[in-house]
């Protein structure tokens, strides 16, 4: 049986959802035999393969111009998109900056007197979007996995269902935020 091609990405989040994925511990060893892990923060592969992947798990909200570009690429290149965790599902903590003006925020964090030289990061680095968005505000999403982070067991359940070509069924406490 051909291995299922999986990519993972993160945007504005804390890496906790990726950590929770690793928290499946030794199940990772069995999973490694069944999936072809492509572009991911955990591998050295940086781009989607030409012919795309089966499943992309995305952690984090869309907060800057790079994320916006990438989330659209992810949609184009993936059969199934999973919003992994509350930041991707609702915006969660990163979206708490909505309502603050991003230029004023940069001035407050980097300008004098917060730093001794007051240089403002506006070169090279990607520009912040005025508003942080959950994935579904930007692209169609196939599955939503709740939690901050979703427990490892829930992530394993979703991945194993997708590997078997089934629709993951999330009920009861699977649907809990936080």
């Amino acid at each position, binding site marked *: 049986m051909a291995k299922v091609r999986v990519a993972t990405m993160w945007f*504005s*989040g804390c890496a906790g959802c990726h950590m929770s994925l690793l928290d499946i511990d030794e199940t990772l060893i069995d999973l490694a035999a069944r999936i072809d892990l492509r572009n991911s923060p955990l591998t050295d592969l940086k*781009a989607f393969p030409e012919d795309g992947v089966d499943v992309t798990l995305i952690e984090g909200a869309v907060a800057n111009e790079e994320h916006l570009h990438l989330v659209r690429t992810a949609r184009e290149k993936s059969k199934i998109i999973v919003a992994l965790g509350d930041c991707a599902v609702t915006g969660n903590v990163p979206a708490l900056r909505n309502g603050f003006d991003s230029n004023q925020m940069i001035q407050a964090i980097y300008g004098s007197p917060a730093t001794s030289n007051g240089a403002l*990061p506006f070169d090279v*680095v990607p520009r912040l979007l005025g508003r942080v968005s959950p994935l579904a505000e930007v692209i169609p999403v196939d599955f939503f996995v709740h939690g901050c982070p979703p427990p490892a067991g829930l992530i394993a359940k979703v991945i194993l269902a997708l590997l078997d070509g089934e629709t993951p069924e999330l009920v009861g406490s699977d649907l809990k935020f936080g």
Partner: protein
Amino acid sequence: MERQIHIEPVTRIEGHGKITVFLDSAGDVRDAQFHVTELRGFEQFCVGRTMWEMPGLTARICGICPVSHILASAKACDAILAVRIPETAQLLRRLMNLAQLVQSHALSFFYLSAPDFLLGWDCDPATRNVVGLIAARPDLARKGIRLRAFGQEAIDRLGGKRIHPAWAVPGGVNQALSQEDRAWMTERLPEARTTIQETLALFKSAFGDTKERDVLGDYPSLYMGLVRQDGAWEHYEGVLRIVDAKGRVVREHNPAQYAEIIQEASEPWTYLKFPYYQPMGYPEGMYRVGPLGRINACDRFDTPLAQAELEEFRAQSGGRSGRVFDYHYARLIEILAAIEEMAELLADDRITSPAIRAEAGVNAREGVGVHEAPRGTLIHHYWVDQNGIIEKLNLIVSTGHNNLAMNRAIREIAKIYIKKGKVSEGILNRIEGGIRAYDPCLSCSVHAVGRMPLRVEIVNAQGEVEATLSRD
């Protein structure tokens, strides 16, 4: 003709971090910059919230070391309550901090970095990752996974959740340790100790030759970390000590007064600020924190196995080491120290006492919490109104302290591998390895766990791309 080389670790459009190398007209390296490309703005949106939610909220700065933020935040709040937390709460917080040190260091070593030097710097990038390590060295990979799992499971048993446990609170912790969970940790400790001892032996047999450890550069700097009053290695409290490249004490300072010795600068090309040792100015006041910073700053370990390793390390290095690669070595020694101290804490009957929280209101308008996170000294500083509403906050995260040093590392490595405009293929993974050795928790400062795919662009003075090296 001057040229720039762009290295985009997470690619141009995918990056939370990228690198530019500047060449002079002779084609030699003039400078290098590590750009951190993500910003979330905690220092802004926490203003106006209550101090009681700060541990839970700031935990979301980082899912790799949430415990660090929970503890630094709770400590800052303890100072605002102006209470001394119960002895048992103190012991339990230490225990959780050590469990986190084990899991986070194990993640850095086994999942992120070991594939480079155990599978080979130049092996196929498609398999040079944890999945490749599982295939090539299943026994070792399983042991590494179980070591991290031990740390995570201990956090879960203490705080009810592996990631973002709502456990440390202003005044102490909110759940005592049960005898059952104490027994579970005690039983699992020997396996963890055996794993780390075997890994240290393996590491030393492969890299005992200090020449091999020069691969990521070697340069002097100041080192900073908390130490006990008597100079021993410490992770939860104590004095903030700065030593020079030879290990001579430059300064010992009250951590609550960090602002007297540490200032921050900013640059237009990165979202990560640059803390520096204020008396030496910017950027000369570069210092390093984290595993190597701590073991260079302390006089000794208080536990016998870690102390024996430290003596061997120092004998081999001729005193303090400035090698970037030695961060990995130091990380393994610290896992051993953490396991030894966990055993001591678990053997102490006070650990299961139910007296775990001091209740109080707002008794001070300002509080500083400082402790050692896996990646180095972490500082939370809050100012509140009389109701405990946050008016202002300052966070100096561990990875930030190393910002100047990481920029120096990539410059050194670029100098080793780029001569007269000739860029060798080897530069890709070495530069990446140089950053990775610091285990930058860019989630803390911003983002990005570990492995950073590279793309190198050589751009001439007209801005045209002359050549591209990449590895996708």
